[in-house]
């Protein structure tokens, strides 16, 4: 074992960054859990049901579990790498140290766009919820949702601006309530507490696999939505008190929570709602857990799941603002983007310029694009990021073998998780191609253009050696 011990309390992976004021180290494992699960749990409240529309209820369950395997691999790989790369930017910073600057620039953009689009989708859903509440309380005309969309994004950006501890403590509370709401709905409708209302066999009759097996493949596209964003836990790396312990613990506890929540969500919704209605997230069930509560006949459940949906959307948007701004900030600090974004607020110790800058970007998408397109844009950015991860861990193990630097967590069965992840990413690319091939090509085209822009123009402003901030030995093979 070398002298490099990233898990040491005196050498926790932080390198010099050249900023006068750093981010504040105040978070614990529960905040990491709240960040990861908070971002994702909204996927159980809305969006996953597009997978039902793609291939039927059984296809959505298969997609749920295969996407669960994909994200378990993501969590394992991420936990190992991030327990040694304890710096804001998450996978961006990992890529910068392990693969190279251009990959890092692309990964940084994947993160920013995946989270900003998810934030926009959350704001759209929150606006829809307010309109439903207005209708239920007797409002006659259709409610203009735009002021609520703007209000949600502005309020959460303000919260993020004011400090990370309050932001993620807020997330912890509302995420826990949203998760408990799913458990209560399951217990109340499945027959465990009181009478059950599940009718899986009757509702599936004649519609088991309406598109055949190609529908199962197609469902993988929105199957990602059950878990998309759990990898965002790594963005807290520079603000947790003990990165080597808190990040793996929070991330792995998060994926376990989500596997339970996703399966329960599928079970209760598909057992109550007909698949055509459930699978149409635009004209049918926008918020399937809420719709399930409506059919339960219990006013208390309707209110609980109404608040659960609202809390899940707020927690997710809140976490997305946190993560997108950290990634944007980290790129600004390294001059991958204009250095102006690399500033930390002198009082609140937050990346305030990045937080403010991303507000209008989120608003453009929340107010100007349909929900499924915004979700697809987010999924595509996430998918490109997951494809990078197997390459990242294989090169990490090759350049810094296990005996060269101590990890806070070593994931087992390497390279099996990397190979599994790469294979499932390939399947999901095909699933996206089946419905949204044009966006996929447009998006990859976008990344090719910005990559050329970065390599031939932007990279000249980057200080070459100084961007390598980890206290690691020289990589093997160089």
């Amino acid at each position, binding site marked *: 074992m070398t002298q490099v011990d990233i898990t040491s309390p005196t050498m926790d992976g932080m390198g010099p960054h050249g900023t006068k004021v750093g981010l504040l180290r105040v978070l614990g494992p529960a905040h990491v859990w709240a960040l990861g699960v908070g971002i994702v749990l909204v996927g159980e409240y809305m969006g996953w049901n597009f997978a039902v529309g793609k291939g039927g209820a059984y296809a959505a369950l298969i997609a749920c579990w295969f996407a669960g395997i994909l994200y378990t691999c993501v969590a394992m790989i991420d936990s190992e790498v991030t327990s040694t790369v304890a710096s804001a930017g998450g996978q961006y910073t990992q890529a910068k140290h392990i693969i190279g600057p251009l990959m890092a620039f692309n990964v940084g953009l994947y993160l920013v766009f995946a989270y900003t689009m998810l934030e926009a989708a959350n704001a759209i859903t929150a606006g829809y919820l307010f309109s439903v509440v207005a209708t239920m309380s007797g409002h006659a005309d259709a409610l203009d949702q735009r002021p609520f969309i703007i209000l949600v994004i502005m309020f959460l950006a303000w919260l993020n601006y004011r400090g990370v501890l309050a932001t993620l403590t807020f997330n912890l509370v509302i995420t826990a309530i949203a998760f408990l709401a799913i458990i209560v709905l399951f217990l109340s409708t499945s027959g465990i507490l009181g009478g059950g209302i599940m009718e899986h066999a009757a509702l599936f009759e004649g519609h088991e696999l309406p598109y055949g097996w190609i529908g199962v493949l197609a469902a993988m596209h929105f199957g990602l939505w059950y878990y998309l964003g759990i990898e965002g836990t790594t963005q807290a790396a520079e603000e947790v008190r003990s990165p080597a312990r808190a990040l793996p613990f929070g991330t792995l506890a998060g994926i376990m929570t989500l596997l339970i929540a996703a399966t329960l969500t599928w079970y209760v919704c598909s057992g109550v709602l007909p698949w*055509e209605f459930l699978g149409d997230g635009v004209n049918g069930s926008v918020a399937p857990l809420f719709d399930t509560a409506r059919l339960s006949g219990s006013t208390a459940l309707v209110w609980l799941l109404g608040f659960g949906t609202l809390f899940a959307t707020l927690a997710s948007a809140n976490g997305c603002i946190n993560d997108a701004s950290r990634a944007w900030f980290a790129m600004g600090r390294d001059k991958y983007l204009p250095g102006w974004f690399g500033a930390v607020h002198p009082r609140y110790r937050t990346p305030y310029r990045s937080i403010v800058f991303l507000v209008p970007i989120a608003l453009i998408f929340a107010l100007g694009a349909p929900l499924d397109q915004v979700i697809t844009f987010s999924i595509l950015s996430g998918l490109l990021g997951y494809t990078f991860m197997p390459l990242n861990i294989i090169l990490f193990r090759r350049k810094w073998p296990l005996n060269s630097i101590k990890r806070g967590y070593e994931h087992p069965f390497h390279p099996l998780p990397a190979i599994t992840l790469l294979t499932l990413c390939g399947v999901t690319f095909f699933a996206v191609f089946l419905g949204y091939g044009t966006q996929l090509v447009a998006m990859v085209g976008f990344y090719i253009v910005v990559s050329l822009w970065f390599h031939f123009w*932007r990279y000249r402003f980057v*200080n070459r050696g100084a961007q390598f901030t980890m206290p690691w030995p020289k990589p093997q093979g160089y």
Partner: protein
Amino acid sequence: MAHYQPPKQGKASQLIDVVVLVVLTVGALFVPLWLGLAGAAKSVTNPVTTPTWETLGQTPAQSAKYEALGYTPETAHDLILARFDYSFSIGALLMMIVVIVLYYVLILRFSEVEYREVISEKFGE
């Protein structure tokens, strides 16, 4: 190896860089939308002229759920019968694969060149 000294970027140049990125980002999402090429719209290929729950392929249990949700056979017609079309051409699939592989090859090759420079400067030759 001599340390690379990056040029100092002026405020106007920084602003232009941000504008370029924002324009490209917005374009990547909205251009396919404006051109009508985005998304997989469902369509009803075999409409039913006088819909009933039976002709829409719904069992009594399924139709009871639709009624509880406030639907009639007429209002549920499009929702129930609309389907995606998953047909595709091998040529389009191959093009997607080529674009994605080329993209990663491009990124990895350029990154490797840049990375060697970083390691060389950080750890010395």
